[in-house]
Every structure is written in C-alpha cells, then in structure tokens.
C-alpha cells in the first residue's frame, strides 16, 4: 500500500468520530462515567470483602480484584435495577416499575429546579427552595387534610393553595429585595429557617396542621378527594404530580422563550441597566419573578404532600430538595428542557440509590457524591477532555457557560 493511497483527506468516519468525541454529548456521557468511577472507589474501599481480600493482596491479588468487581458491579447493578429496569421482577409491568419510580422522584426535583432556574434567568439566586417548599406543603396540606370539598374542586384548591403559599413565601424575599436592596441570598436563607420553625409550630398545634387527637408533629393523611391520582394504576406510585411538573416545564418554557413578561425578566437578568433604561421596572421584575419561582417550587411541595407522601407529613417533607434543586437547575443550565432532563437523571439516581442501599448495603450518600461530580465534570469539558485525552474542538467550547444570568453574584 503506497502512501498516496492512505486517506488523503480524513475519512467520513474520522470526522464523525471527531465530532462525537468533542461534542457536548460525549462530554456528558464521559462525565457520568468519571463520576461513577469515583463512586466505585468509595464503594470498593469501604466494602468488607474488599478490605479482607486486600489484607492478603500480595498473596493473592486476584481476590482483591474479584472482590472489587463484585462490590462495584453489584452496587451499580442494583442502582440500575432500582432506577431503570429490573430484569429479576416478574412481568413486564414490574420490570419497568423502577422507571416510573424514577419519574416520581424526578417530579419535585423538576418543579423546584424550575423555580431556581427561572430566578437565575432573572439574575437572582433563589437559595430559598426549602422554605418555599415547606410553606407550599403547609398550604396544600391544610386544604388537603382538613377542608371538606367536593371531588375535583378539592384537589384544585389544594394545589392552588400550595402554589400560592410557595409564591408568597418567595415573594417576601423578592419584595424585600426590591424595596430595600437587601441581598436575596441572605433573605432566602433566613426565610428557609423561619419557614422551618413556622411549619414545626403549625405541625405541633392542634387546629392548624397537627393531626386531631395526635401528639406527633405530623398532619393527618390527605383526604381521598385531594390526592393526586396515580397515573398508571395502583401498582405504580407515579402520580399526577408528574403531569403538574410537565405542565410547569411547558409553562416556564413559554414564559421564558415566548412571553413578553419572560422577555422582560430575562432582560433584567442579563443586563438590569439596559432593562431599566428601556423602561422595564427592575424592582417589579424581581417581585414578579420570585413569586412565580416560589409558585414553581410550590408545585414540588404540592406533589410531595398530595402525591408522594399522602399519609400526612412532618417537618422535613422538603428532604433537602430545595438545595438539590439548585444542582438540578445548574446541570440543566437553567433552561426548562435542560431542567427536565437533569431532574429525571437525578430522580433516577435517587430511585436507584434506595435499591442500592437495600440490596448491597451501600450508603445512599454514594449517590450524592456521584451526582455532584457529574455536575462538576459536565461544567468543565476541558478537564474531561484532558482526562480522556480527547482532541480539543476547533471552536473552543470551554467558555460556553450556562445561561444563568451573569448578574448573579454573591
């Protein structure tokens, strides 16, 4: 074969390969791989079989390797069975049940992620998802558990009550920021803690949220009429909260991409000076965006109390999702579609984490570690490329940062 015959120009495969390896999709996949590798290190070093095998590593190294493989593959297989597809279950419905569980767990993450992401787009760092979710839960929970309303109307009123409560709680921060210029990060952090204790008090007070006749800081179960119906029948836990989250995604997409209000909010987020000079009231926008963001986070609270935990709830119903939502929003680059994807990914990790813990006794926190590493790696493509020695694309994409308004500083 002469030198002249060998590929005078790069073959089509080569070009395609290059595009794949330098593109965003590859980075995402490799980020997940890297994070999973890091997770497996944790799993392996704390696994007892691995530890005991490592004790005689020099005598029989293959034992250690085998133990590591068993520990890691077992854990990730369990994760997969819990999050996507369980081949061990009987019947197709049971096999794909994990997928519906993932969507269930994704629901509040998507809704709250939207609330954080929307605020980002308007230049605000809404770190108050926790408080907003708690207040939404209180609102929806009160209506759902203690009001007597006809079928249909009851659910509607409960949902609205939750969304409005979340909106008001965030609106307080927006209003104070607009009026006094106080930093929204402080305001929302303080409001988180205030909500925490306010809810604790309501839960401990008869006539407000505490279940009648009980001493526990818990509400009564929600009335049947206020429950978000299961979407796929009673064998699956996936409830209509997921539909609410999808509606929220669609609404937020419309708001940001198509509506005039969203246009103004984005303008304020990208450049408040120019927005002001163009007649857009920055302070009013802050209030509006926080109210809407709080309402979206409210959907998360609503879906928890009326769908996921319908048996009555206590003081940590937010389960840290106000903060998870920040990660989801960041991974989704503050775009509604991105947040939908990020929410589902994290929901799947969550669902899988439970199964991994139950089956392999691997603590849930591995999932936290893996999730946060994914976000970090995806945000830094050059690092991932360097690790895998991938070529740098012609146009440097490294600086393509998220669409979080740049005005967000702390």
């Amino acid at each position, binding site marked *: 074969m002469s030198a002249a015959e060998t590929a005078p120009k790069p073959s089509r495969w080569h070009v395609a390969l290059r595009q794949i390896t330098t593109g965003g999709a590859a980075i995402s996949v490799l980020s997940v791989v890297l994070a999973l590798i890091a997770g497996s290190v944790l799993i392996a070093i704390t696994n007892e079989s691995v530890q005991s095998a490592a004790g005689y590593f020099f005598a029989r190294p293959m034992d250690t390797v085998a133990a590591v493989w068993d520990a890691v593959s077992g854990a990730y297989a369990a994760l997969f069975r819990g999050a996507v597809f369980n081949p061990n279950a009987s019947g197709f419905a049971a096999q794909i049940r994990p997928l519906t569980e993932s969507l269930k767990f994704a629901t509040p993450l998507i809704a709250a992620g939207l609330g954080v992401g929307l605020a980002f787009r308007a230049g605000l760092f809404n770190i108050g998802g926790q408080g907003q979710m708690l207040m939404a839960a209180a609102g929806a929970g009160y209506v759902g558990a203690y009001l007597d309303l006809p079928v249909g109307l009851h659910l509607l009123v409960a949902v609205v009550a939750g969304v409005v409560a979340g909106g008001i709680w965030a609106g307080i921060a927006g209003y104070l920021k607009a009026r006094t210029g106080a930093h929204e990060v402080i305001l929302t952090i303080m409001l988180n803690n205030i909500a925490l204790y306010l809810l604790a008090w309501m839960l401990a007070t008869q006539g407000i949220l505490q279940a009648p006749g009980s001493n526990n800081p818990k509400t009564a179960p929600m009335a049947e009429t206020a429950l978000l119906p299961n979407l796929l029948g009673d064998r699956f836990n996936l409830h209509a909260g997921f539909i609410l989250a999808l509606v929220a995604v669609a609404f937020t997409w419309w708001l940001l991409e*198509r509506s005039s209000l969203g*246009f103004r909010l984005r303008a304020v987020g*990208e*450049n408040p*000076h*120019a927005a*002001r*000079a*163009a*007649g857009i009231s920055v302070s009013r926008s802050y209030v509006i965006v926080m109210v809407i963001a709080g309402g979206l986070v409210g959907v998360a609270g609503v879906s928890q109390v009326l769908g996921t935990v319908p048996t009555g709830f206590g003081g940590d119903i937010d389960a840290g999702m106000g903060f998870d939502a920040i990660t989801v929003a960041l991974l989704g680059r503050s775009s509604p579609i991105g947040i939908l994807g990020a929410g589902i990914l994290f929901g799947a990790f969550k669902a899988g984490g439970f199964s991994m813990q139950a089956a392999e006794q691997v603590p849930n926190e591995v999932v936290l570690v893996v999730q946060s590493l994914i976000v970090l790696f995806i945000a830094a493509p050059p690092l991932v490329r360097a690790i895998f020695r991938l070529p740098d694309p012609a146009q440097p994409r490294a600086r393509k940062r998220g669409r979080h308004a740049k005005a967000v500083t702390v």
Partner: protein
Amino acid sequence: MKLELRGITKRFGALTANDHIDLTIEPGEIHCLLGENGAGKSTLMNVLYGLYQADDGDILIDGAVQGFSGPGDAMAAGIGMVHQHFMLIPVFTVAENVMLGHEQTKFGGRLDLAAARARVHEISKRFGFNVDPDALVEDLPVGVQQRVEIIKALSRDAKVLVFDEPTAVLTPQETDELMTTMRQLRDAGTSIVFITHKLREVREVADRITVIRLGKVVGEAEPTASNAELASLMVGRAVELTVHKDPPTLGDEALVVSGLTVTDDVGTVVVDDVSFSVHAGEVLAIAGVQGNGQTELTEAIVGLQDRVSGSARLNGRELAGRSVRDILDDGVGFVPEDRSVDGLVKEFSIAENLMLDRSHGEPFVSRGTIRQNALNDFAREKIDEFDIRTQGPAQAAGRLSGGNQQKVVLARELSRDLSLLVAAQPTRGVDVGSIEFIHTRIVAARDSGIPVLVISTELDEAAALADRIMVMYRGKVVGIVPGDTPREELGLMMAGMSGSSALGGETSA
C-alpha cells in the same frame, strides 16, 4: 532605548488582529500610531506590554529579543503604558493605585503609603499635575484619572511610554497640556508611542507616523501630511469629513427644561439648576468633558434619575416624576451613553434588542406572547435599512462590532414615533464610516421635525451636528452658543472659562 517589533501576529479565534506588524521606536521620539477602530492598535500595544502573548514575532530592546511572560516583565524592561480603558482600581486612592504592584512596606508588612504619596507629589510637581494622592479614584474626573495613569507609568521609570488614545477624554486645553508633557518627556529621553484618531494632534506632536489598517501596517507618513491624506490612508478610501446639513426649520419650543437639578446618592449636585429649551426641528448639542453632568441630565429627562427637582416639559407635559416606561411611551427616543451597559442586552439577539423598550402590546406582543414573525420581519427590515453587518436577526448583539451595536440602538430608537430624540455620545468608539451614517440619520430626524438633544464630548461632533451648542461644566451651564462658534472658544468654555463671544451669545433660552 531602541524598541523593535518584528513580525508581530496576534489572532483571536478566526480574527487576525495583528498581521506581521513591524515597528521601530527610536530613542527619544514621539511615534504616532494611527488607525480606524478595530485596526489592531491596542492589541499591538498589549502584546508589547506583555498582556497578550503574540502568536508570532519578536520584541527586541536594543537588539536583544525579549520574552515577556506578563506585564511585570515588560515593566521591568522599562515599558510603561497608559491604557485606553483606564487600568485603575476605582475604590483605591491615587497613592494606592500608583504603588500597586511595586509596593514598599514598613515594619510589620505595613504598606508605606507615605512613600507612595511622596512619589505622587514628586511626579505631579515635575509635570505640573495637580493630583491629591489620597483622593479615591472613582471620585476623580476622567482628566485627572488619566494623570494618575501617567504618574503610575512614570513612577516605574519607564523608558518607553505608550499612550493609548489618551485624548479622548480630555478638554482641548488638557490635550495641549498633555502634549507639552509628552514633549517634556521626549526631551528627557523617553520614547513615546502615541495612539489617537485625531489628526490634528498627530500633526502637532508626532516625530513619525505609522498607519495601521485591518491589522497590517499600510504606510508611514510625515507630520506634515494633510488631514485628507492621513484620513484616506487610515480608511483606505476618501472620507467625507464634514456633515452636510441644511439650515434648520425651527418649530415651536418642544422641550423646555427649567431649573433642573439632579443630586447623586452621596449628595453631590451633579446637575445644578439647568435651564434650556429645544425647538422642534433643531439639534441642541451639549458639549463638555465627560463627567460634567451631561449624562445625568439626559438620564433625568428620561426618568432614570432618582433625586430630581425642577421641571422638564415635553410639548407641555411634565416628564419629571414619571416612570421611564411612561416617558418612552410618550415618544422619547433614548440612545444611552454607554451602549454596552445601558443600550443593549448583549446576550439577546438583534431582534430581541430591537424590541427591548416595546415589550408591551403592539406591534410585537399580543396577549402576552411575543409575535416572533412580526419581530423577525421588523428586524430584517431594520438590518437592511441601517446597514447592520450581521448574519441575521438571531445573532447575539454582543457579537457585533461596536459600530454595528450602535446602529442597533439607533435603529430601535429611530423606528418609533418620536416626539424627542435624546442621543448621548452617538458615535463614541465608532469608526469613520459608521460615523458618517449615524450623523446622517440624526440630521434626518431633525429635518423631520423632531427636537434632538445630542450629548458629545467630541467638539468636532458637536460642531458638526449642532444648531446650537450648550456647554456644561461641573453640572452647570457655562453658556449656550451658536453651532459655528470657534473651537478655541468652546474649549475655554469646557474648562469653565468664558471667552468674550461666549458671553455675547445667548446665555439662556
């Protein structure tokens, strides 16, 4: 010290900002660099200063190749630079700014501010500057800030001093003083690279002139060359240097401002009891060095200032106290001074920027939803009409060149039904070709009977556009004079002085 640049090439992505540039600076000469916006002058100087790394080429000092890895090395080699965009920390004092990077310390690591003050005093005295070392830089007028930059460079005993467009922010008098300083430095043996667009200045101080166009050296010229020769070298074609305009057909007094006073948030009266009026079909230019209240005056008119007293009536309706949106909806067109801060959302598309101040109702919004098609059609139309060089309406405004960004703002404001046009620095940082176009459009607006208020720190621009010129100094009106007042006199007025004819002109309206 002899400085040579050989074959300097610098690329930004696909753009080649410097293309094999050769330049030699002899000891003790003032070497002028001349070129359009974006020709690559600042880039070249930043390479020289170690701020950018050249992709190709060498820097030689007295024949020895230098390897600058950063400005620290360049400074150590005796190169100093007064940057086009001041490199001062606004919240630091003058002394702190001057000492930054080569601080002297006393016992306990304590900064030796006394030494820095002394240094500032010493250099100030040598060049007749009047700079308070303890003033905060952000409180200083730009002219003084520039002196701080010069002191900074001199305090490190620079052998080669680069001045990148230092005169853009100076009064004519200050410019003269600066040129005296430059000659003084040259005579003491310092080499100077002087960048400017102003041909008059070039011919006055330059020992040699190099012209750069599109990143390449296109020629050398003698200080004796005529304006027209230099301009055509710069632009590559013959350029119209004056605006053609007919005498105004004046209508009624449209904008009447009386006793307008604006206070900033620390209590300084930045616009002090200003009164004037603008007729329909007239251009009133407000001249003055930057920072003398012009900006705040325009912002007060469109409702962007908080602490305003007095009145501004447009066709009989009071503007003061109303919201910005209200005022804009009344037909006030506003071209803000700093387009990248106040005029545009850089991340938005051109189309989105064109609807920025019309996000309520017709024609772009119906029932709360943006009418994408109407907006895109409109954007295409304006791109055509204003000759905005772009790939299309969806391109992000921030990716346009400065001149084209400015055209987007003008297109937005001029395509509304206007009852008043307020344009601040409409051609700042815009190249000669675009200036021609923008001036024509402003004059066209005037001719269609719109009252126009133009703020310009460039005397040439004020003189070219204005039917009358109002000069402001320290927030107060120095005088209002006809558009053809001689520039020496305007220069004096810009420094708060008055020549006889200024006193003789109409001082109130």
